[in-house]
């Protein structure tokens, strides 16, 4: 073990320190205990065993799978230049000789001439690179893909030292030149022609395509890794860690989430709504006593010589609260609205009694779209196509929507109801009708407002969140999951 301990010497600990600082800067919550655990862990897993090393660090430092993406990015930057096979340099050196030979034969077999540069392999011609790309995907050969990735980045990315351009730009340039769509077609043609006797069935087509796509994905990751290595070599770890940092799901702004990020948000939202459900239910349970717990009473009576001196009660089953969600789905909050509908769907799964309303300038109840279906995509599609939310022109009119709500459903708000209103309160200078909120609050248990806009924008322009807010139990900025969670915590 002495040998491994040496690995975890001072340089290693310093490296680890820097790594953890960067993790914290990326928003990952690393506690002191966890830092100490990581220091312990690296004594047992050598850095050279990179994959194991990465998992060991993750196991001690990252306790939430949603944080994996951010962790991995930081890790790849931090340790990108460590380990022999990861050094920047000799692009073909790590490609097995026999593969190169085979490739050479292949090329000459096609009558395209010899590999350039004799045995040196310094530079591949464009045709050779294209052929190598095709072959690497056809075989799903990892080391060949890595070689292709290195060559392509070198040739196509146009990376120059000191150029202040981000990784995505280089990735885009490289991919554009590789023209993977045509390669894909060639691969599929190859699969089809392998069996002229009978054509591929649709199922076979699908499976072949999925296989090649997963290989292409692998190749893209190699390319990204190569770009990252070169950027780090050029600009240093700290600078790149900062540039390449990926936000944690809880920090992704609802209003500006990309498709991939929306997916992360959706995954992260279920545990949160469950917490919300528990919180709301528990509030009602406080101070109440359930039926006598006989066993527990007798158990405790033993301390009194068998006299049941201290009656014990069961916790009552938590009461199911009732929730009304009223959500703005207008264009100004489109991205938020998509998220909102997922939230509603998730909440509907947790509470037996959720009613959902959406509005623009008209308002409609959409509870029925979430009931009796397991398909969230379907639910959202129906909300977007079937809900009757446009009254005049499809520009937000909170006042009118609230008034309509009050006249149609106001009576159904009761003392068990918690009302959540989601929206930016941008009312296009229509009448506010804030008396409705006041009335709702009279009837309901609580009224909360969640606003997806930064607080500094509130009450600027046509936003009148302040006016509505005076009638709510609380108005909360809710731009990301972290803030949503904070709101949930406030409820305790």
């Amino acid at each position, binding site marked *: 073990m002495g040998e491994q301990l040496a690995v975890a010497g001072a340089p290693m600990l310093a490296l680890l320190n820097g790594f953890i600082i960067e993790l914290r800067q990326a928003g990952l919550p690393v506690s002191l205990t966890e830092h100490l655990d990581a220091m312990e862990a690296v004594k047992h897993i050598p850095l050279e065993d990179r*994959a*194991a090393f990465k998992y*060991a660090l993750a*196991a001690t430092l990252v306790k939430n799978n949603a944080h994996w993406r951010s962790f991995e990015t930081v890790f790849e930057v931090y340790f990108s230049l460590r380990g022999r096979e990861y050094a920047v340099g000799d692009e073909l050196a790590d490609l097995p000789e026999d593969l190169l030979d085979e490739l050479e034969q292949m090329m000459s077999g096609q009558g395209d001439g010899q590999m350039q540069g004799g045995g040196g392999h310094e530079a591949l011609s464009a045709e050779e690179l294209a052929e190598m790309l095709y072959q690497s995907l056809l075989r799903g050969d990892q080391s060949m893909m890595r070689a292709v990735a290195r060559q392509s980045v070198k040739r196509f990315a146009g990376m120059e030292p000191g150029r202040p351009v981000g990784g995505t730009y280089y990735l885009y340039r490289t991919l554009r030149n590789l023209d993977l769509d045509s390669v894909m077609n060639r691969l599929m043609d190859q699969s089809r022609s392998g069996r002229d006797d009978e054509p591929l069935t649709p199922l076979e087509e*699908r*499976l072949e*395509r*999925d296989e090649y796509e997963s290989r292409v994905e692998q190749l893209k990751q190699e390319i990204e890794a190569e770009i990252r290595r070169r950027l780090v070599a050029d600009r240093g770890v700290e600078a790149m860690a900062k540039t390449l940092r990926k936000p944690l799901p809880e920090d992704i702004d609802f209003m500006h989430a990309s498709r991939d990020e929306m997916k992360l948000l959706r995954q992260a939202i279920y545990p949160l709504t469950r917490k919300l459900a528990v919180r709301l239910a528990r509030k009602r349970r406080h101070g109440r006593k359930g039926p006598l717990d006989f066993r527990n009473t007798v158990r405790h009576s033993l301390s009194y010589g068998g006299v049941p001196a201290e009656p014990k009660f069961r916790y009552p089953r938590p009461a199911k609260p009732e929730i009304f969600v009223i959500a703005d789905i207008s264009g100004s909050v489109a991205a938020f609205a998509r998220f909102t509908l997922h939230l509603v769907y998730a909440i509907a799964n947790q509470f037996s009694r959720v009613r959902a309303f959406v509005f623009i300038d008209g308002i409609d109840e959409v509870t029925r779209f979430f009931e009796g279906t*397991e398909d969230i995509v379907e639910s959202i599609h129906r909300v977007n196509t079937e809900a009757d939310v446009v009254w005049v022109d499809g520009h937000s009119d909170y006042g009118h929507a609230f008034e309509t709500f009050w006249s149609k459903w106001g009576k159904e708000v009761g003392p068990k109801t918690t009302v959540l209103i989601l929206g930016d309160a941008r009312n296009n200078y229509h009448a506010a009708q804030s008396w409705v909120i006041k009335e709702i609050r009279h009837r309901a248990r609580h009224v909360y407002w969640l606003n997806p806009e930064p607080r500094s924008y509130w009450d600027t322009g046509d936003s009148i969140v302040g006016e509505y807010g005076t009638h709510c139990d609380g108005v909360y900025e809710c731009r990301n999951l972290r803030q949503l969670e904070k709101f949930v915590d406030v409820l305790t």
Partner: protein
Amino acid sequence: MPDGPANEFRFDSVDDVRDRLRKVDYLSDEGIAGIVYLADRLGKPILVEGPAGTGKTQLAKSVAEITNARLIRLQCYEGLDESKALYEWNYKKQLLRIQASKADGDSTGWDQIEEDIFSDDFLLTRPLLEAIRAEDPVVLLIDEVDRVEVETEALLLEILSDYQVSIPELGTITARQIPLVFLTSNNTRELSEALKRRCLFLHIDYPDMEREKEIVLTKVPDISESLADQVARIVRSIRQLELKKSPSVSETLDWARTLMLLGVEKVDAEVATSTANILLKYQTDIAKANKELSNEASTVNRAAK
């Protein structure tokens, strides 16, 4: 914390973990094997999280098997409390003892009786205490810990950090050896920070295609390489769809077994469609998968050729 027998580690290397797991038909990967190895070295519990049916429970069982340890399992559920998890006084027996002493004409004083009835003889040991007191090697599995209320988690904290429990009437009981501890969670709610801090974290996701194929090959007797390969490929494609519930490893295995029973050698769209209900639980998911896998989209591609 108890020292445990010095330097007696259960595994020599990450590969050692992996090889031995494979021998008992558990197919791990670098992450799984690495973290089991690390848990042994650091003497820390592992919190295993991931979708249902991905081999979390089986991992604990398999590790018990390869380390010749007894598996002690605490199955969690809503409402689980100390008396079921840790220990309980056998109050019926205690009452009888008190009655008996009263009938005896009460020669013993209450102090004596009290001391008596709060001794080992009257203690009902539950899984957590059992694991702490074990003299033989054990693996403690605290299964589906996300099912207990967050308040109940507190029960586990002392055990997970110090491998000891405090019983007011008996004092503190410390483990003689550090057992390997696995907690599993299907992530239906977030666990407390305090609990997570004490554990190594292992997320087990659906296996990649190669590993799933291997799992099928090891777990389904007599299945051909080619059928296992088709099964794994189709399952991979299905998992890429946006579904209410993706097929788990256990469902993959059930499906493979069914195909074997039906004598299928090649899975075509018809077979896949007629057996999709084994892989997928929701009607909408089945419909979606059937449509995607035998669908017009790819036919269009073919036509364009």
